[in-house]
C-alpha cells in the first residue's frame, strides 16, 4: 500500500478482488459490474466499452452505406434512358458527389475501423482497446461529421464538385456558396476520427496482446488492420492538409491553388491522390484480412503460407504509396515519371497474387464447410480478379489515356471496391454476426441474398466497361439518344436494382435472425482464433481471465502439457488491464482504465461547433479552440477517487522501488 506524492491515501478496499478462473462465478459477476457501461439513456452517452462503440460505429457506417446506395440508385434511374429529366444537372452533381464522398469517407474506411474496434481486442485476448475514451470520441466525431454532410444535403448545400473536389471547380471562383466548404470540413471530421482510430489500433496491437501472442502468431486479419492503421497515419494527413488549403482558399483568400498568384492546381491533385490511392488499399486490405480469417475456418485447416501472407500485406501497404500519379496520367506530368508509376502500379499486383494463390492452396488442401460466408469469400476470386486485371490496364499510360475518366473506370473501381471489400465484408458480417448478436443468420436467406448480389453486381457493372470504351465519360447527368448508350445503361440499372434487392435481403436476414436465429454458442464455426473463446455476445470484460497463447490458432492448437492457460491477479473490481511487450508479448505491466464518462461525447460536440462554425467565420477557430479545451481539460483531470484506486493498485518498477521506500 503506497501513499500519494501529496499524501493521498490508497482506496481502502478497491483492488482487493483479483480475477482468474479460480474466483469462479462470483469474480465473473464482479468483472461484469466493473466493465459494464452505466445503464439508461445517460449511460448510452457515457459508453466507452469497445464493443458498445464498435457496434454503434458499425451500424452508423452501414446506415451511411444504405444512404449512399439510395443515391446510387437515383443516379442509375436517371441514366436508365437517354435525355432523362428525373434529376437535373445541379442535383445530379450533388448526388454523385454525395455518393462518392459517403462511400469513401463515411462507409468504406470507417466500417473497417469499426469492425476492428470491436474485433481486434477480442482476437488479441485483450479486455479493451487502448485509450477507450478516445475510441468513443473518434466515433462521436465521425457521427457528427456524417450528420453535418447529410443535413447540408437536405438544405440544398451538398458539395457538388465530386468526391475528389478538383480545384478550380471546387475553389472560390467556381464553387459559389458553402457547398464545398461543407465537403472540406466533412473531411476534417472523418480524418480526425480515422487518425485517432489508427493510433488506437496500433497501440492495442503492440501493447495489449495476450501473453504468448508473439508477432508471428498475430491473426492475419489483425496484421491487415495493423498495416491499414499505419497506412492511414501517412495517407490521411495528405487529404486533411489539402482540404484545409481548399477551405482557406475559399474563406480567407489564400492562393495555394490560384495560378494567378503563384499557386498551382495540380498541387491539389498530388496531395489528394497521395491520399486517394492508398485509400483504395485502405479499403481493400481489410477485405484481404476478412478472407484470411474466414478461409481457414471453412477449409478446416490453418492458413497456408502465413509468413508470405504477412509480408505481402506489408508490401502492398508500402507500394500503395508509390502509385498516386497514375490518377494523373492525363495531366502534363513528365513522361519518364509516368513510366515509373506504370511499373509501380503493375508491381503491386504481385503481393495480391501471392495471397490469392495462398488462399487457393488452402482451399485446395482443405475440407470445405460450405456456409454463406464462404460464398462471399469465393465471389472475391471472380469480381476482385476482374477488377485487378482492369486495374493493370489503367496502370498503362497509353491505355489509360483512352479509358481514363470514362465509364470503364467506373466499372473498374466498383469491381475492385465491391469485389475486394464489400463482398468480403458481407461475408464477414455473416461470419461474425453470431459473435455480435449471439444468434446465427439464416443460411437460406443468406444464399438468396448472395446470388442476387453477385448476379446483380455483374449485370450492373460489367456493361460499364463497354460503355467507357464506347466513349461514355464519367459524371454525366445524361447523354444524347443518338450515342447509342441507352440499352447498356438500362441493363446496368436493372442490375443495380437486383444488387440493391440482394443487399436488402441481408438486412432483413440480420433483423429477423436477431430474434429468431439459431443460438450460436461461443464458437459456431469451430474457428481457431481467440474471439471465439468467449461467450457470444462477449461479456463486458471480454474474457473472465486473459488467455495465454501458444500458437497461431490458439483454439485449435490448445495448451502444451504443464503450461499455464490463463492470466490471474488483475483487479476485478477496478478496470485493470495487462500490457505486454511489443515483440514477444510477455506480461510486462498493469494499467488502470478510466471509468465510463460523457466527456468524449461533450468534447466531440464542442469540436463539432468549432468545425461547423469555422465554415462561416474564421474567428470560430479562436473561440472554438477555447470551447474544445474546456471538456478536454476536464477529461484529463483526475478525481480523488481515481487517484485512490490508482494508489491501491500501484506497484513501482524494481529499480524505482529501490530508491523510493
Amino acid at each position, binding site marked *: 500500500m503506497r501513499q500519494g*506524492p501529496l499524501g493521498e491515501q490508497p482506496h481502502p478496499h478497491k483492488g482487493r478482488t483479483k480475477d482468474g478462473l479460480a474466483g469462479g462465478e462470483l469474480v465473473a459477476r464482479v468483472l461484469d459490474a466493473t466493465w459494464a457501461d452505466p445503464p439508461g439513456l445517460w449511460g448510452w452517452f457515457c459508453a466507452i466499452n469497445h464493443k458498445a462503440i464498435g457496434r454503434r460505429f458499425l451500424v452508423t457506417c452501414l446506415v451511411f452505406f444504405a444512404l449512399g446506395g439510395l443515391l446510387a440508385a437515383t443516379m442509375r434511374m436517371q441514366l436508365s434512358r437517354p435525355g432523362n429529366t428525373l434529376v437535373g444537372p445541379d442535383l445530379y452533381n450533388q448526388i454523385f458527389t454525395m455518393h462518392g464522398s459517403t462511400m469513401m469517407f463515411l462507409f468504406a474506411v470507417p466500417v473497417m475501423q469499426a469492425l476492428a474496434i470491436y474485433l481486434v481486442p477480442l482476437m488479441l485476448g485483450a479486455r479493451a482497446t487502448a485509450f477507450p475514451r478516445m475510441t468513443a470520441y473518434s466515433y462521436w466525431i465521425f457521427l457528427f461529421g456524417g450528420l453535418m454532410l447529410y443535413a447540408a444535403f437536405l438544405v440544398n448545400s451538398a458539395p457538388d464538385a465530386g468526391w475528389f473536389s478538383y480545384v478550380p471547380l471546387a475553389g472560390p471562383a467556381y464553387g459559389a456558396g458553402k457547398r464545398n466548404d461543407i465537403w472540406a470540413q466533412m473531411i476534417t471530421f472523418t480524418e480526425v476520427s480515422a487518425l485517432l482510430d489508427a493510433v488506437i489500433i496500433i497501440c492495442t496491437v503492440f501493447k495489449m496482446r495476450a501473453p504468448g501472442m508473439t508477432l508471428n502468431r498475430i491473426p492475419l486479419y489483425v496484421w491487415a488492420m495493423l498495416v491499414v492503421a499505419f497506412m492511414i497515419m501517412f495517407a490521411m494527413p495528405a487529404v486533411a492538409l489539402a482540404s484545409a488549403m481548399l477551405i*482557406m482558399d475559399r474563406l480567407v483568400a489564400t492562393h495555394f491553388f490560384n495560378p494567378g498568384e503563384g499557386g498551382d492546381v495540380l498541387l491539389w491533385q498530388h496531395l489528394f491522390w497521395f491520399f486517394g490511392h492508398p485509400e483504395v488499399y485502405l479499403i481493400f486490405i481489410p477485405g484481404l484480412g476478412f478472407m484470411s480469417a474466414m478461409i481457414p475456418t471453412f477449409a478446416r485447416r490453418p492458413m497456408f503460407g502465413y509468413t508470405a501472407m504477412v509480408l505481402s500485406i506489408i508490401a502492398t501497404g508500402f507500394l500503395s504509396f508509390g502509385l498516386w500519379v497514375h490518377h494523373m496520367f492525363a495531366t502534363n506530368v513528365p513522361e519518364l515519371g509516368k513510366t515509373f508509376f506504370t511499373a509501380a502500379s503493375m508491381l503491386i499486383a504481385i503481393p495480391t497474387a501471392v495471397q490469392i494463390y495462398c488462399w487457393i492452396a488452402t482451399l485446395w488442401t482443405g475440407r470445405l464447410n460450405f456456409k454463406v460466408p464462404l460464398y462471399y469469400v469465393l465471389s472475391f476470386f471472380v469480381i476482385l480478379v476482374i477488377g485487378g486485371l482492369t486495374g493493370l490496364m489503367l496502370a498503362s499510360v497509353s491505355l489509360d489515356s483512352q479509358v481514363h475518366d470514362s465509364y470503364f473506370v467506373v466499372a473498374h473501381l466498383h469491381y475492385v471496391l465491391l469485389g475486394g471489400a464489400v463482398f468480403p465484408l458481407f461475408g464477414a458480417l455473416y461470419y461474425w454476426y453470431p459473435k455480435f448478436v449471439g444468434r446465427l443468420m439464416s443460411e437460406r436467406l443468406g444464399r438468396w441474398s448472395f446470388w442476387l448480389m453477385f448476379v446483380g453486381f455483374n449485370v450492373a457493372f460489367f456493361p460499364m466497361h463497354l460503355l467507357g470504351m464506347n466513349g461514355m465519360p464519367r459524371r454525366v447527368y445524361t447523354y444524347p439518344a443518338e450515342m447509342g448508350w441507352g440499352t447498356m445503361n438500362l441493363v446496368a440499372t436493372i442490375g443495380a436494382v437486383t444488387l440493391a434487392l440482394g443487399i436488402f435481403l441481408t438486412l432483413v436476414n440480420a433483423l429477423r435472425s436477431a430474434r429468431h436465429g439459431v443460438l450460436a454458442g461461443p464458437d459456431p464455426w469451430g474457428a481457431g482464433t481467440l474471439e471465439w473463446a468467449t461467450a457470444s455476445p462477449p461479456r463486458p470484460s471480454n474474457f473472465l481471465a486473459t488467455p495465454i497463447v501458444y500458437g497461431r490458432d490458439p483454439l485449435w492448437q490448445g495448451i502444451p502439457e504443464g503450461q499455464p492457460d490463463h492470466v490471474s491477479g488483475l483487479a476485478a473490481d477496478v478496470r485493470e488491464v495487462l500490457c505486454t511487450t511489443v515483440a514477444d508479448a510477455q506480461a510486462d505491466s498493469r494499467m488502470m482504465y478510466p471509468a465510463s464518462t460523457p466527456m468524449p461525447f461533450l468534447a466531440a460536440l464542442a469540436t463539432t461547433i468549432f468545425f461547423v462554425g469555422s465554415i462561416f467565420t474564421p474567428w470560430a477557430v479562436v473561440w472554438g479552440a477555447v470551447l474544445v479545451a474546456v471538456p478536454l481539460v476536464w477529461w484529463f483531470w483526475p478525481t480523488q477517487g481515481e487517484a485512490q484506486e490508482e494508489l491501491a493498485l500501484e506497484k*513501482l518498477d524494481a529499480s524505482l522501488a529501490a530508491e523510493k521506500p
Partner: protein
Amino acid sequence: MNEAVVRGRALDVAELPTVVFSHRSLMWWGTLGLMAIEGFVFALVIASYFYLRSHQETWPLTALPPDLLWGTINTGVMLASFLPAHLAKRAGERMDLPGVRLWLVASVLFGIAFTVIRGFEFATLNVRWDSNAYGSVVWLLLGLHTTHIVTDLLDTIVLTVLFFTGPLDGKRYVDVSENSFYWYFVVGTWLPIYFVIYWGARVV
C-alpha cells in the same frame, strides 16, 4: 520481484508494475503515433512549399524574405528549452516531486517566452497569407507550428497546476515524461521549418 509468476494453471501478474516509462508505457506509443501524424503533416507542407517554388522563376514571388532577427532568436530560445524539458523528464522518471515542479514551471516560462516571440515572427514575415501563394504556404507552415506550441504550452500549464493541487499518483509522473517527450518533438520539428521559412526564401 515484480514479474509474473506461474501458480498452477494461472500466470499471476499481480506483482507487475503499474508505473512504467518510455516504450513500456501505452501512453508513449500513443504520443509517438500522434507525433508521426503531425510530423508527416509538416513534411507535406514543406513538400508543398518546394513544389510551388519549383514552378516559379522568382522566389519569394513579389515579397521580401522574412526578417531573420526574431526567428533566429526564437530558434535559440527553443533549443535552450530542451534543457528544462529534459530535466523535467528525468525528474519525472525518478518520481522526484520538487524537481518535477521546478522544471515544469521553467518549461511553462519558456513556452510563454517563445509564444510571445512568435508574435513578432508573424509581424516580420514581410508577406500576408492572401498576398500570394508564397505568403499562403509560409503562413500555413508557421501557423501549424504555432498551434503545436500553444497546445503543448496549455498541456504543460495544466500538468503544472495539477502537480501543485493534486490529486496525484504515480501515473502522473508518466504524463510528465510524455509531456517532455512531445516537447522534444515540437522543438525538433521547428529546426527544419525554421530553415525552410527563413532560408528557403533566401538560398537559391
